[in-house]
């Protein structure tokens, strides 16, 4: 991707860096003896799961460790000068000018009460790079450079008036404003839709080539790293597991951990978990269809009341055979969530028919609707938010049993215990509260809660999107196993096509509330029926490696 000039010194040289956090009692080492270097114009990816120390390492380079963090040893050399122990005052000159940051979450990374123009011009003002009319002209040209339409209008807008992708472009404009030598991109696209993600990464690549900037790309997504980085630094538990040229690391990983990461990354797995022949057959209508959606329409009244309703879902139809997995794919605003809410009976559709296991949903009212809900259960994306922090795991899982039917306490207990061991949670987890569990364990609890009522259909709303790849792979294994053993039908809502391809039999692709593609997964992936589907498939990261293997 780039050529590193051997003559010039590295832009960044991290040597034996150790960092620890103080938790009020003692220091806990989070980063152990990490060393790597970044040459001019090079992209180096720090890859690892949550807790691997990748973000801590990145924060220490720009001098923005959390207040309870400290550098215990080692050096961070910027152009040969060690800045590891510099004061804030010294670092203020470096930050923004020599090293800049593209943050993770564009939604919360811009000040909500300041205009875009004020936030872009700020970096120029802090470093005295421009003032007056020159300042405004430079801000507009920066916004134009990062591909924002109508930059003169954007200058006066506030962050909430821009989409996630546009906000990330603004943050990139800020990061490149002073043509720094190094940009730290901390999970720059993990909060964005795949097609937006691709365009943003392309933009970073383009600007890097134009300005000769080096990039430290922090990511948990090996696919993204494979596509974009010249070299990889694989971190686990704060230690470097493997380091080297991207192609070599991916083609011949030396550490067991890297091999595991590659095996678990959905974008790399060439084989689907389902066998194509049966999947294709499952796409045909049959008497054994447990979910039938026919011509679903959902309108919302606009709050500003010009009388014309907003059509969130427009004529969606699909059928799902018992014991199979149907994926609903689309970007934010495509109508995925709205469709799901109608299917589980949370809201009455404007038009169309929904049939679950032979029951027409529109006929259900009050108590019959409540009883129907045990047939179809939901697992949400965010296991932190969907579990009551004050309940124990046992209470969380047993609660649905209290709501439906009158099982005696011993029977309830036995049932909850059985289901928890079914989802692979240790007995000891029963009395814990959600905060004491890992992300993967929390999602297992959420799955157990959904299964405790013996539902026919489980709706998985982005249920694995927030998890690290290796954890995600284990949860997908579990879902597979449960489907096989219990004959469950899954409705799998996701924006991640790599995962969808792995685990679904059939798929519906939604755009602006309409079905643009549907059918057996391999048909849709191999012969996409719409440009949109093709764009989605091309945006899946990790395809460089797929070509390489």
């Amino acid at each position, binding site marked *: 991707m780039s050529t590193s000039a051997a003559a010039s010194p590295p832009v960044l040289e991290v040597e034996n860096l150790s960092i620890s956090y103080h938790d009020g009692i003692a220091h806990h080492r989070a980063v152990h003896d990490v060393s790597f270097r970044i040459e001019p114009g090079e992209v180096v990816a720090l890859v690892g799961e949550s807790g691997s120390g990748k973000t801590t390492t990145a924060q220490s380079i720009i001098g923005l460790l959390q207040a309870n963090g400290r550098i215990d040893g080692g050096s961070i050399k910027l152009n040969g000068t060690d800045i590891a122990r510099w004061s804030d005052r010294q670092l203020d000159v470096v930050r923004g000018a020599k090293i800049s940051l593209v943050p993770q979450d564009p939604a919360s990374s*811009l000040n909500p009460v300041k205009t875009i123009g004020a936030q872009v011009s700020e970096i120029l003002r802090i470093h005295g790079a421009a003032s007056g009319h020159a300042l405004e002209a430079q801000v507009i040209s920066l916004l134009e450079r990062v591909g924002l339409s109508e930059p003169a209008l954007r200058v006066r807008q506030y962050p909430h008036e821009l989409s996630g992708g546009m906000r990330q472009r603004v943050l990139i404009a800020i990061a490149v404003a002073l043509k720094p030598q190094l940009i730290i991109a901390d999970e720059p696209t993990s909060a964005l839709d795949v097609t937006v993600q691709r365009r943003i990464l392309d933009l970073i690549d383009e600007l890097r080539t134009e300005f000769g900037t080096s990039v430290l790309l922090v990511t948990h997504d090996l696919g993204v790293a494979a596509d974009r980085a010249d070299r990889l630094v694989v971190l686990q538990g704060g230690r470097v597991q493997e380091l080297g040229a991207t192609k070599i690391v991916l083609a011949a990983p030396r550490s067991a951990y890297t091999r595991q990461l590659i095996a678990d990354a959905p974008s790399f797995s060439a084989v689907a978990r389902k066998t194509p022949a049966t999947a294709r057959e499952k796409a045909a209508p049959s008497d054994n269809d447990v979910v039938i959606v026919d011509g679903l329409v959902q309108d919302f009244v606009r709050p500003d009341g010009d009388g014309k309703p907003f059509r969130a879902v427009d004529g969606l139809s699909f059928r799902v055979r018992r014991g199979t997995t149907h994926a609903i794919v689309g970007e934010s605003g495509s109508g995925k969530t709205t469709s799901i809410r109608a299917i589980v009976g949370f809201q009455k559709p404007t038009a169309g028919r929904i049939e679950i296991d032979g029951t027409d949903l529109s006929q259900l009212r009050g108590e019959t609707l409540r009883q129907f809900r045990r047939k179809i259960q939901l697992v949400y994306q965010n296991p932190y938010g969907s579990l009551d922090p004050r309940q124990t795991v046992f209470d969380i899982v047993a609660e649905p049993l209290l709501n439906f039917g009158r099982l005696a306490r011993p029977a309830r207990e036995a049932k909850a215990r059985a289901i928890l061991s079914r989802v692979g949670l240790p007995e000891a987890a029963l009395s814990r509260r959600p905060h004491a569990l890992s992300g993967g364990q929390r999602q297992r609890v959420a799955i157990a809660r959904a299964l405790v009522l013996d539902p026919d259909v489980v709706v998985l709303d982005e249920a694995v999107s927030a998890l690290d790849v290796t954890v995600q792979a284990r949860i997908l294994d579990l879902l597979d196993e449960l489907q096989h053993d219990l004959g469950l039908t899954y409705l799998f809502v996701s924006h991640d096509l790599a995962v969808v391809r792995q685990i679904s039999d059939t798929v519906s692709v939604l755009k602006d509330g309409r079905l643009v593609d549907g059918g057996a997964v391999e048909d849709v992936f191999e012969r996409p029926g719409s440009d949109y589907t093709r764009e989605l498939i091309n945006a899946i990261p990790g395809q460089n490696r797929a070509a390489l293997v």
Partner: protein
Amino acid sequence: MSGYLLNRLGQALFVLWAAFTISFVLLQAMPGDAILIKFQNPELGLNPQQIANIRASYAADSAIWVQYVQTIGRFSTGNFGYSVQAGVPVSTMLAAHLPATLKLASLGFVLAAVLAVAIAFVSSLTPFAWLRGALQSVPSLFISIPTFWLGIMLIQIFSFRLKLVPVINPGPWQELILPVVTLAVPISAPLAQVLVRNIDDVLTRPFVAVARAKGATRHWVLWRHVAKNALLPTLTIAGVLFGELIAGAVVTETVFGLNGIGGLTERAVGSQDAAVLQAIVVLSALAFVVINLIVDLLFPVLDPRLRTKAGATA
């Protein structure tokens, strides 16, 4: 926007009506009334017929609902009626006592805001952990001090011991110094607490890290990014605290012998002067409602996110 405004105005009118009605019912439910207290005094030597005539002139014995409708009708035109005890129009009495209270309350509120902002910002800016700890414990100390005790202590220390502020024949501003401090201290405590918490909360937001990554100093970030975001939720609390301010003013005026609405309230309660009390309740409710209406209308001005219509963002 106009829907928002109409909605808030409607709520404000409802609050006023409710305050009027509840206070009217409570004042009517009290045994005895101002006329009996004043004119049944044996020293006046009035016979029952004369008392009955006086009662008739005040329409004191007509049906409650007739009085209610008449009073609400008068109030809506700004006519607060006559004080039985003083024998002058209530509006004249209010006009005489209101300026002192307005001065006390507004100065008290300004001082409370200044104290709260000082405590919050100095504690977040200071590099010394001990100072930060000390400043952040100040609000809980302030909030537990009773107004009457603080007033007396301030007089003891500053007037009698240190002789810094005269109590005998003070100037028009001198006499306000200690009452304003007394009033401001308990109001500043919850403001400071909320502000400290909001600043800490805003400091953890990602946009603060982005601002630091631009090379902004801690001061720059605090004043240009954190301040406005942290002050927004504090504004709501400030509106609610206005009620405390009114209650505090009554006690403070009594302690310092100031001739304001507080003193007037105290005397009107003693003589069961229902007309005066009714007017004071409605006036306080009006002030409270107007202040909170202003706060509600300020929000869209200060926070651009509230300016666009709901649902217009995509």
